[in-house]
């Protein structure tokens, strides 16, 4: 592990100067049944121009984390603790006014379901122009010209005509492009894409992912991509964070996490998806059981009831002590297995499955 963590600096835990820095974030929801610990002590960093991929199953806290960054949780039933620093500015306690000034300008979001995220009552052009007028003080005419330009940039044919269309007149892929145009209209420094391509077909998904990547190269924005699809992560992200039950269980560069994964959950994820060139005679290896309830997460390591390697850990501490991510390191996993054990298990048992 130590050899792996010596590679060049990336979003680690140490530097305080990173563009987006999240420290010990807790997001708890009060519900009738008790407190849902949706995010339970999460820290990560992101630099300008790089892409962080967050993977995990539904309910692992991926989206909740990012809604917290944007300040979109209802304060009445949400308790948020911890630090979210965007370019040195604290966001957790920020007032609605401060957030309003940042949202759309400095940080923007691309949602999964473009039909639900766009208003059916306004034209696409108006929805793209609105944040631009608000943040730059541009006139209606300037904003409209900007909207046409944005639509052209994201590849909508005949943008000067389509700018007056309503969202229902666009196809799914075009709506997703319009959402990207809307998010990028003020050249934000941070773009959060929450499952941006899950609702799309593969051919359109490939277009959209390439487009995001190309636009990032052009604008130098930092991107957070949230997805459950490891393939999307492998194609787009520089760094990966694997989340389980509200916590990060493994982090590192894409290469490290995909080629030398250390956490049993990541192993499980990688060996449960077939590939286009994998052997078809060997059955897939699913992760047994189901994700835990966040109302009463299991004690100790939240993954231990589904983990096949707990017997290798002395004293059964998986069920009692919660493993922590190595402090201050960019690469690491929250698991009680020793580095040599992880290495051995991966090479002997997991790696052959992935071929």
């Amino acid at each position, binding site marked *: 592990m130590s050899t792996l963590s010596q590679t060049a600096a990336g979003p680690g835990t140490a530097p305080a100067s990173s563009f987006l820095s999240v420290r010990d974030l807790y997001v708890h929801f009060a519900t009738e049944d008790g407190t849902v610990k949706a995010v339970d002590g999460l820290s990560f960093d992101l630099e300008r121009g790089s892409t962080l991929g967050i993977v995990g199953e539904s309910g692992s806290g991926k989206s909740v984390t990012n809604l917290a960054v944007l300040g979109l949780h209802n304060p009445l039933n949400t308790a948020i603790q911890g630090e979210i620093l965007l370019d040195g500015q604290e966001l957790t306690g920020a007032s609605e006014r401060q957030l309003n000034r940042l949202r759309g300008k400095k940080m923007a979001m691309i949602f999964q379901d473009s039909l639900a995220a766009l208003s059916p009552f306004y034209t696409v052009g108006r929805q793209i122009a609105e944040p631009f007028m608000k943040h730059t003080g541009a006139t209606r005419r300037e904003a409209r010209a900007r909207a046409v330009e944005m639509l052209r940039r994201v590849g909508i044919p005949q943008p000067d005509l389509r700018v007056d269309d309503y969202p229902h007149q666009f196809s799914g892929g075009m709506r997703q492009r319009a959402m990207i145009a809307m998010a990028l209209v003020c050249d934000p420094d941070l773009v959060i894409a929450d499952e941006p391509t899950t609702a799309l077909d593969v051919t359109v998904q490939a277009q959209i992912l390439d487009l995001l990547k190309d636009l990032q190269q052009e604008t130098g924005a930092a991107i957070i991509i949230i997805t459950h699809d490891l393939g999307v992560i492998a194609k787009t992200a520089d760094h990966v964070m694997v989340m389980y039950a509200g916590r990060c269980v493994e982090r590192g560069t894409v290469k490290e996490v995909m080629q030398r994964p250390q956490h049993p959950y990541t192993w*499980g994820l990688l060996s449960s998806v*077939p590939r286009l060139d994998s052997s078809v005679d060997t059955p897939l290896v699913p992760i047994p059981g*189901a994700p835990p309830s966040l109302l009463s997460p299991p004690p100790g390591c939240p993954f231990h009831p589904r983990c096949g390697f707990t017997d290798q850990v002395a004293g059964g501490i998986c069920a009692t002590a919660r493993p922590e991510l190595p402090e201050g390191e960019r690469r690491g996993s929250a698991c009680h297995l020793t580095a040599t054990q992880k290495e051995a298990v991966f090479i002997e048992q997991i790696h052959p499955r992935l071929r």
Partner: protein
Amino acid sequence: MSENATSLVKQRGPASGSGSGSGPLLEVTGLAKYFPINMGFLFKRHVGDVRAVDGIDFSVGRGETLGLVGESGCGKSTTGRLVTRLLEPTAGKIVYAGQDITHASRRALAPIRSEIQMIFQDPYASLNPRQTVGDIIANPMVVNGIKPPGGVEHRVRELLETVGLNPEHYNRFPHEFSGGQRQRIGVARALGMEPKLIVADEPVSALDVSIQAQVVNLLQDLQRELNIAFLFIAHDLAIVRHFSQRIAVMYLGRIVEVGDRDSIYRRPRHPYTHALLSAVPEAVVDEEGEGRERIRLAGDVPSPVNPPSGCRFRTRCWKAQDKCAAETPPLVRIEGNREGHLTACHFPEEPTVAARDEDVVLDPALAAIEEATDTH
């Protein structure tokens, strides 16, 4: 799981029902389904059709899996519903086990209904929330007059065990189960009919990745043990490849290419199959650059109300010529194809990667941005 399936096979009675001979279990020729578009108040004028499925031929052998892939709106699900006769075909012929069921009456269909079962995509919508799991699985048996030895309840408990659920959950309601478990209930319901053909319409796409594999493995075990044929409809190409011996690729209501697994995934000939395969993001980080060729189509699938003339893919195809607009390419075995590998294309691609061009980028925005960044 496989042990359970083996135990099930012992208790299964001798193969029942219709059908004889050694031909394919299901044979479909020229199948079409048009949904009419009506306009106007009081007097509905027929102004056009959504040509969801427009003349397709395929067959499914006994115990075989045919995978049906394509983008949304290409008619995969409609095909599944036509085969199960949930929809009335507009044209064409469906022959099941030697019997023409294209327009068979309710009465004539009754014995066949239990043999062709369906597994649905959304495990939340396909189970009645007011019925217990026991009732959900037992009702189809009661309706179809299936009297298993040992009684219906005994059989239901057995089925629950077969699909990896606790038989003691017999009296629970669907909301008490997770998505993966609900999908297993749907599988148990289908198995209760002792089906010969299961139409699985996106059976795993609503599930989390770690759960998908559980359900895929379950279906595969059952197929092996019980020799059930599957029409496996999905948009996930990797899952389809894993599950199906033969694969048909659909585009805008037509089959553009069909063949065995190796032919489709290793030696595809239709440009659309190429584009589809090259668009799949894979959970592999390339060591040196891109491992696979990259094809980026422009735009979306055209509307099935007014599909392009000739070859329907021509509007997005980089090889299209005048001939493509004039003539519809037939689905035939073209030169260089192996036995059973049919392609509908006038200008097919070279079968090997080395003989093809590297990248095809048709998307105007991508091409523009990439050109701009290249010149910097």
